[in-house]
């Protein structure tokens, strides 16, 4: 299983039947492909609807229907469209159960940085700041390191997306829960040792007892 597949497969398990979920652009979008058969998740798209489905068959694209990444998608029966003010009322108002986003950095206080690298890459925050503040559960899905450097830090140094809002961090190496006391490693990937995780992680963390195996 490749690294990204492992991550999104694990994230998918966090989503419960009936959950209203917003998936960020990029890797998080793929979470939709790994949701259990008997679990019905309602996907919210920040550009104005609930009930987002998968990609259309080639040639069946609807020019009036894109996701928040501008890609053509479909909607499921029972979908509902609305304007951006309502969309963000839903997001900021706590009506989204979970959001899954990538990160440049995340730290042991649950701070998240995922929208800019000063002087280098400034795409803008789009809807990310609202999502992270408003969603009941914020799941960061990312590779554990970038070019060998830890991304799970004691303290983010890139500009923040939000303060102390991250609840769960899922990487190819393991799963961390963010609590008021800091990070707890809840699961590790089968072939990775605790020592290897410590080496790849700058943040302090405690280890759950027992430490479960990720995607067993």
């Amino acid at each position, binding site marked *: 299983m490749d690294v990204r597949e492992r991550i999104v497969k694990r994230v998918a398990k966090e989503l419960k039947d009936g959950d209203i979920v917003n998936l960020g652009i990029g890797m998080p979008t793929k979470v939709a492909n790994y949701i259990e058969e008997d679990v019905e998740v309602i996907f919210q*798209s*920040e*550009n*104005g*609807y609930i009930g987002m489905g998968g990609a259309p068959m080639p040639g069946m694209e*609807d020019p*009036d*229907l*894109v*996701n*928040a*990444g*501008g890609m053509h998608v479909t*909607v499921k029966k029972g979908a509902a*469209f*609305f*304007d*951006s*003010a309502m*969309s*963000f009322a839903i*997001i*900021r108002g706590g009506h989204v159960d979970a959001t899954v986003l990538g990160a440049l950095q995340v730290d042991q206080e649950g*701070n998240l940085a995922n929208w800019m690298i000063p*002087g280098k890459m*400034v*795409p*803008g*925050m*789009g*809807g*990310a*700041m*609202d999502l992270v*503040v*408003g969603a009941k559960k914020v799941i960061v899905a990312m590779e554990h390191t970038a070019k060998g450097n830890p991304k799970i830090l004691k303290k983010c140094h890139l*500009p*923040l*997306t*939000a*303060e*102390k809002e991250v609840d769960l961090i899922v990487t190819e190496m393991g799963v961390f829960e963010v609590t008021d006391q800091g990070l707890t490693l809840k699961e590790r990937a089968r072939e990775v040792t605790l020592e290897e995780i410590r080496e790849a992680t700058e943040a302090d963390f405690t280890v759950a007892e027992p430490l479960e195996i990720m995607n067993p």
Partner: protein
Amino acid sequence: MEKIIDMEQAIAYVEDGMTIMIGGFLGNGVPDQLIEAVLQKGVKNLTLICNDTGFPDRGIGKLVVNKQVKKVMTSHIGTNPESGKQMHSGEMDVRLIPQGTLVEQIRSAGAGLGGFLTPTGIGTVVEEGKKVVEIDGKDYLLELPIKADLALIRGSRVDKKGNVWYRNSTRNFNPIMAMAADRVIVETDEVVEIGEIDPNNVATPHIFVDHIVRRTV
């Protein structure tokens, strides 16, 4: 009052230095033909308010590439490298605003409010220069209304009175911007007779719409 006008009449309302809202989201639900006309007219020093600056070769982004934009208030410029370039060179003043805050600021202007308190942006650079208000032990940013001289929006179906109905994800910022500009021009795929849109399904009531421009194929 006859609201249907042609592109030439529409574009006469666009002037140098104006503050213009443009509806749409990454090219979806964008009034491209109105934008094309603004491009052709070549008006300068525009302040744009829009969700994103689109793509270099499509929609709003073309106005940036053509250097007609002095300032932009937007949530995302990542799909248009030219926006980033002009931001870094200082040619264009880019104000990045969280999407939910941006749309609520526009609504606030349209709704006659003096502003609102949002938790979004607390503890980030978005906080800079803004008032923080604590309510029940939680911090919020005071965000102010944003209005415009002109809103260019896109509607899927418009009746001759100006009632607008939007299809699927094309709605996005369009109905909110229609509330917050001195003049509102809607570009539409389809003009229908008055009464053809069920009054219960109108998303933008006609009182917000000044002019209707039909898209040409």
